[in-house]
């Protein structure tokens, strides 16, 4: 994979936003609550999503936007166990 070297801070800024826009609008993800950061030719994505399909789609969408970057998908899955007890608010 071709490295782009250290991008200037300004272009890094717009790269982050291009990925975030794609993740929000792409129907495979529609995720607005992810954190995207760019370091050189590496892109890191964190956050939590409901399904493995959507977690995997995040990397696919990001790679489509930035084919010359290395995408690190650190997104985790929702935890959905039943609660063990309630909180008394009275």
């Amino acid at each position: 994979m071709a490295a782009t070297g250290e991008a200037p801070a300004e272009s890094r800024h717009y790269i982050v936003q291009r990925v975030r826009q794609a993740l929000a609008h792409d129907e495979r993800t529609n995720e607005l609550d992810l954190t995207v950061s760019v370091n050189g030719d590496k892109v890191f994505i964190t956050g939590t999503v409901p399904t493995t399909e959507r977690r995997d789609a995040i990397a696919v969408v990001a790679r489509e936007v930035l084919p010359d970057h290395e995408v690190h998908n650190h997104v985790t899955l929702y935890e959905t166990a039943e609660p063990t007890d309630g909180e008394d608010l009275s």
Partner: protein
Amino acid sequence: MIRIAAVADIHFGADSSGMLRAQFEDLTHHADMLLVAGDLTKCGGPDEGAVVARELTGLPVPVVAVLGNHDYHSDEQATVRSHLEDAGVTVLEGETTTVDVDGARVGIAGTKGFGGGFAGACGTDFGEPEMKAFVRHTMALAEGLEHGLRSLEGCDVRVALLHYSPVRDTLAGERAEIFPFLGSYLLAEAVDHAGADLALHGHAHAGVEKGVTPGGVLVRNVAQPVIKHAYNVYTFEPSRALHADAHA
């Protein structure tokens, strides 16, 4: 005891079917009702509305919901709402409902709510039509919420069910720059003016669970990435009046 289960931001898509069904079917072991604080779908498509409606249909406890911003994205919110209603879910927008639990009455006033920010650092209905429309949308929904909560006076427990946050407290962990897109103090003001026992919201996936309005009403952010369970449960002892009746 009144037991209220609540969750938000389940963001159902075609890939979500069955994700919460077993936990929902088991609700009677934990709660007397399920409140869903918006963002039931990924992007508000009719197909997603149908999937989440199937997940919520025929549950052993009453289900009450408000929609969230994601449920509006495809401009099919009316279709999403009717899928939910056909599945027996009560959907609130400026409306109220009551649920009876062993002779105690729980009143729920619901609205999606909207943004604008928080006292000292918020939008004002001033200037361009787009800015006025943004802030006035929140103002109108807050007014409906206040009216709804007032109409529930006399209930043993009153709950404000929102998608957007009424307070800053539960946004800790979110970036401060986006607070105006996460909620509005106008929602807290409505809750404080009318009075309530609990305000539930979602939307702030990176926020925290617990907060309180300036007037002292408890706030809980039940976004699923925050509560990290299928739902959280909040309990209330019935009011003193009911106790007196019960022990008379």
